[in-house]
């Protein structure tokens, strides 16, 4: 009898746990998708696959949700469910209006051939399965989730708002009070709905970010480079990033959304044709704003992407480079200013109190830093991520390196940034390098793979770059 009761109570616990996890994911993913629906039906994105458009809707919705909730906290209002529901109703209204207005617009080019899709589907499924398994069994969870990302979320959920008082306390500086709010606010929103926050489900959100990004990358590349090349480039990107995320224990921290935002911005910019209007720039600009709102290094990467894009456009002698560059960076700059003002208004530090003082360099450990970083860059799958695109571009795309500038500048710039950052370390920097470098290089790897992939298989100066060579390449 007692045995049966015990089993029933155990089943009950499992049921409650499942309900908590499902409601958490529905809040974090579902509500964001609804808020981002206008993006999914935007006429300039109609040529992308449904999965890609839903992924973009989720990312845009996350940014909208975080902006709304952060603004409410900034003016001292509690997060209310009705406010988010109201925003959802607004998003649905805008979406239905957009669908009505653009019904007559032409649809995009046809989707992938059966070969491209089936090969991509096979690889995609294998990588997705391997990645998800690692996150679900707790093999790739980031310690930072339990140290500050998730901790902030739990407290924000309890307070129904950003807990500025908590972030100001002297024994709470390990929470990195200056860090941008997107990830903890998003998790907190899920925790409010789920009650309590299902910690165990959070690492899987990193998998969601990578999978969503891979879907967008494939779909954008498919219409520009053809299905075969799109399958190869997006699968390498997905496999390398999935493996490095798992091996660097990034599950549940903000690296997943950061890589998503930066990769989407880059793939859109990289596939622009030299002789056409920049009609998808708005998407890249929004994605860069998302990166800035997610992690501090998102601002560095966004600046590098903008610089690389401006350099490429200047080499291509495109008109209106200054105006286009300003419009590309404007949403990201607005986001940075917004978070800056919130921190000033609520007495939060502008720099990280537990990091080293800026511009206080130490050159005593240059050799050690170089050795450790080079070892990381040349080991295992990370080495594959650098070498395969490099060999490919040397073989097939040496004369198209201008196209790769936005990504190459970003990749190399992030490595230089990491090196300069480590020069600030007081004492032995080994622990700092080992702790942070495997995660810092992920946006760099992403930028490298995407940029050299596009450069390898595109045809300079043509509309729809590379479609010809992209299809020819494997004939």
């Amino acid at each position, binding site marked *: 009898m007692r045995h049966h009761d015990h089993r029933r109570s155990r089943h009950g616990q499992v049921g409650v746990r499942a309900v908590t996890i499902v409601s958490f994911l529905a809040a974090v993913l579902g509500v964001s998708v609804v808020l981002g629906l206008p993006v999914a039906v935007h006429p300039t994105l109609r040529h992308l696959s449904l999965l890609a458009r839903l992924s973009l809707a989720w990312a845009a919705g996350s940014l909208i949700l975080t902006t709304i909730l952060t603004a409410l906290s900034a003016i001292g209002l509690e997060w209310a469910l009705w406010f988010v529901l109201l925003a959802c109703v607004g998003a649905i209204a805008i979406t239905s209006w957009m669908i009505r207005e653009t019904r007559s617009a032409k649809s995009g080019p046809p989707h992938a051939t059966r070969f491209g899709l089936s090969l991509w589907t096979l*690889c995609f499924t*294998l*990588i997705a399965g*391997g*990645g998800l*398994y*690692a996150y*679900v*069994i*707790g*093999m790739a*969870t980031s*310690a930072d*989730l*339990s*140290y*500050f990302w*998730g*901790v902030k979320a*739990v*407290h924000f959920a*309890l307070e129904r708002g950003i807990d500025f008082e908590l972030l100001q306390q002297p*024994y*709470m500086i*390990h*929470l990195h009070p200056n860090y941008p709010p997107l990830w903890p606010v998003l998790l907190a929103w899920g925790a409010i709905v789920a009650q309590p926050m299902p*910690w*165990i489900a959070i*690492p899987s959100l990193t998998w969601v970010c990578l999978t969503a990004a891979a879907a967008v990358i494939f779909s954008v590349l498919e219409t520009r480079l053809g299905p075969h*090349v799109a399958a*190869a*480039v997006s*699968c*390498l990107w997905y*496999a*390398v990033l*999935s*493996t490095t995320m*798992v091996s660097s*224990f990034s*599950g*549940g921290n903000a690296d997943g959304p950061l890589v998503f935002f930066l990769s989407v911005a880059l793939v859109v910019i990289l596939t622009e044709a030299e002789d056409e209007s920049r009609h998808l720039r708005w998407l890249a600009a929004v994605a860069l704003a998302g990166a800035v709102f997610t992690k501090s290094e998102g601002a560095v990467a966004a600046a590098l992407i903008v610089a690389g894009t401006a350099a490429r456009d200047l080499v291509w002698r495109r008109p209106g480079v200054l105006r286009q560059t300003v419009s590309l960076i404007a949403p990201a700059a607005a986001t940075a200013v917004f978070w800056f003002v919130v921190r000033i208004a609520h007495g939060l530090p502008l720099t990280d109190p537990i990091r080293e003082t800026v511009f206080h360099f130490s050159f005593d450990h240059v050799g050690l830093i170089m050795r450790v970083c080079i070892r990381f860059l040349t080991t*295992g*799958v990370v080495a*594959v*991520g650098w*070498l*395969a*695109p490099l*060999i*490919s571009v040397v*073989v*097939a795309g040496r004369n198209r390196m201008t196209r790769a500038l936005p990504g190459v500048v970003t990749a190399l710039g992030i490595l230089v940034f990491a090196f300069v950052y480590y020069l600030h370390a007081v004492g032995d920097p080994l622990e700092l390098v080992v702790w942070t470098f495997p995660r810092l290089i992920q946006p760099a790897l992403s930028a490298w793979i995407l940029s050299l992939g596009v450069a*390898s*298989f595109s045809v300079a100066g043509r509309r729809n770059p590379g479609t010809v*060579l992209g299809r*020819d*390449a*494997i*004939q």
Partner: protein
Amino acid sequence: MVVGKISRGRIAITVWWVGVVISTVTLLSRPHRHGEIDLSLRSPFDNTGSGHAEQWLFLTEAARHVPRGASFTVLAPDRDTEMSLYMMAVGLLPEALPLPSSYFGQPTGAGDNARFVLEFDDRRDMQPQKTCATTITGGRVTDRWVSEP
């Protein structure tokens, strides 16, 4: 010339697929290389091998003994573990008041004022006199306000 271009393209695309195969095999073989897999899903860190899972289980059990609003501190055999436990405890006991005994390796003295002491890894030498202690997975919770009967 055309043949040369096509073969260059073929070589390039082959390089990408070789990269895909290597990376995918590495990803899929990772659990196998890890050794025995714990499928209990008790903590988010079950198979990281980092020691966080043990700390997590200790704190989640300790949380049941610390009432809402009560102050607590954590003690561990070394300062790194103590800092790790403190950071985790802020999230796992969100409605209690954390007072660190040490912070980033430096003793604070704040922990002396805490009502509950969460001792990880059986730190019995720290047992305050005449207090009520409960042994839990991975350590012990002591209520300094309740005397031993």
